[in-house]
């Protein structure tokens, strides 16, 4: 059933809080950190005004926030939190516990740089640093996408075949604090979509008592980790099922990635989150100039859709990958994955890494244009390139 909803001017954080209001989770335990704060601040107002039944747990740190969520989740509750940057770093230990114990916790992340130097603005170094902790990661370009993907994440996380936590990432300040038009769908429809969590096991189930968090040493730890990999491998199928269900409400598409003017594109930029908006604008302008350029916007980063990405890039001549974080001493995270995806292809496109936007540095149209022009003229190499970085004093 399609839901009309209403279009309202909202920040990304407010839109995410609206999704949480409609979901009405049993427990939200969180600690404020810029630029995530207004998600939980807004949600707390909803709770205070009696618009949700959620038990808000005011904890003393993110380590405790995730710990409270894990406890609640293992007790069968629908638990949520939100964080970024230093907060994500502080909860790191329990982030691994959440996925290891198979807690379907949904956590919005307003991407922000990891210190030092201290910086409150956007890059992806926080969630990229946590990419191997066993969480599903969905990156969102707009407030609308973030709002809708909170619902997708919830149903994906709680699916009996999955039982894994999900990070729903938006760009700090750029998306979290900028006001955009967001269509908030009808409460009744979204509440029905969210439904109730049906836990497989619960600490509060007296008929089937369980122990949680017991030690596993050389004898069983390996097997438990193998199960997590199995669940991750089942994500793509369930993701598309949930996406189809959500699409019936919103009319929007939720592929692993978005292909924009890719059909005959010779030069392609692969990127994520808000940078895709800038890139799309440049694609439109350059298309008007007759240049065959296109955009591949990755949404699902964990698990990474290697085969599908390889197919999508199979016709491109040259591909530029724009990363908003670095992996010091290694390939930048997204570039590394694209490089992996292309390995099995017989006819590989040229591939070039660009890092941009660290610590909130703006990605300008001229930067995107520069990357496209490099791809159109075959300037592809294995060197690491940087967009918007000063090589010398101005």
């Amino acid at each position: 059933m399609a839901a009309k909803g209403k279009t309202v001017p909202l920040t990304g954080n407010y839109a995410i809080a609206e999704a949480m209001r409609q979901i009405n989770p049993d427990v939200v335990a969180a600690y404020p950190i810029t630029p995530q704060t207004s998600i939980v601040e807004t949600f707390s107002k909803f709770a205070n005004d009696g618009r949700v039944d959620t038990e808000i747990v005011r904890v003393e740190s993110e380590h405790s926030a995730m710990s409270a969520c894990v406890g609640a989740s293992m007790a069968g509750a629908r638990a949520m939190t939100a964080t970024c940057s230093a907060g994500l770093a502080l909860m790191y230990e329990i982030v691994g516990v959440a996925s290891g114990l198979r807690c379907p916790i949904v956590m919005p992340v307003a991407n922000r740089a990891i210190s030092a130097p201290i910086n409150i603005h956007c890059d992806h170094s926080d969630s990229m640093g946590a990419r191997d902790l066993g969480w599903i990661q969905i990156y969102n370009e707009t407030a609308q996408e973030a709002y809708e993907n909170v619902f997708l994440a919830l149903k994906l996380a709680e699916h009996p075949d999955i039982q894994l936590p999900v990070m729903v990432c938006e760009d700090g300040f750029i998306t979290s604090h900028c006001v955009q038009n967001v269509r908030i769908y009808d409460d009744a429809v979204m509440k029905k979509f969210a439904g109730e969590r049906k836990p497989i096991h619960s600490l509060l189930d007296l008929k089937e008592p369980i122990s949680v968090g017991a030690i596993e040493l050389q004898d069983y730890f390996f097997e438990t980790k193998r199960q997590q990999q199995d669940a991750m491998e089942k994500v793509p199928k369930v993701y598309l099922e949930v996406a189809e269900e959500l699409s019936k409400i919103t009319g929007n598409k939720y592929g692993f990635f978005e292909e924009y003017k890719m059909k005959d594109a010779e030069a392609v930029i692969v990127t994520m989150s808000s940078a895709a908006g800038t890139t799309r604008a440049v694609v439109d302008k350059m298309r008007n100039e007759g240049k065959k350029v296109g955009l591949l916007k990755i949404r699902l980063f964990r698990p990474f859709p290697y085969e599908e990405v390889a197919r999508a890039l199979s016709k491109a001549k040259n591909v530029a990958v724009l990363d908003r974080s670095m992996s010091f001493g290694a390939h930048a995270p997204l570039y590394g994955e694209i490089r992996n995806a292309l390995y099995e292809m017989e006819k590989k496109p040229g591939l070039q890494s660009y890092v941009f936007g660290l610590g909130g540095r703006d990605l300008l149209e001229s930067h995107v244009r520069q990357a496209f022009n490099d791809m159109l003229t075959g300037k592809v190499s294995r060197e690491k390139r940087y967009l918007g970085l000063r090589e010398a004093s101005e």
Partner: protein
Amino acid sequence: MKAEKFPTEKQTVKKQGWKDIPEGGIITRAASAKMNKTGSWRAFRPVIDESKCINCAMCVLNCPDNAIPFRDGKRGPVNLDYCKGCGICASVCPVKCIKMEEETKFRK
């Protein structure tokens, strides 16, 4: 020294594969800790001189593994399936009737 001879209990347990165990390492039955016989960790064994024991139950109360039983007003023998050999019983015994002896002496 024939230390390589123990532990043996765990080696005989048939282990399950990743497809057969509950997800997230949860334990789905009560009192499963009983299966984990920690006595195999023991390097020293408490040996009680019954002629000196005054049956005060200090060892019973202080044993962190509840490995010393107390029934019908009498202390029983140390349960060696679970005694880790920590020596707390010997330490708290007011008449010093518990002696910690090297486990290898008993495993020949």
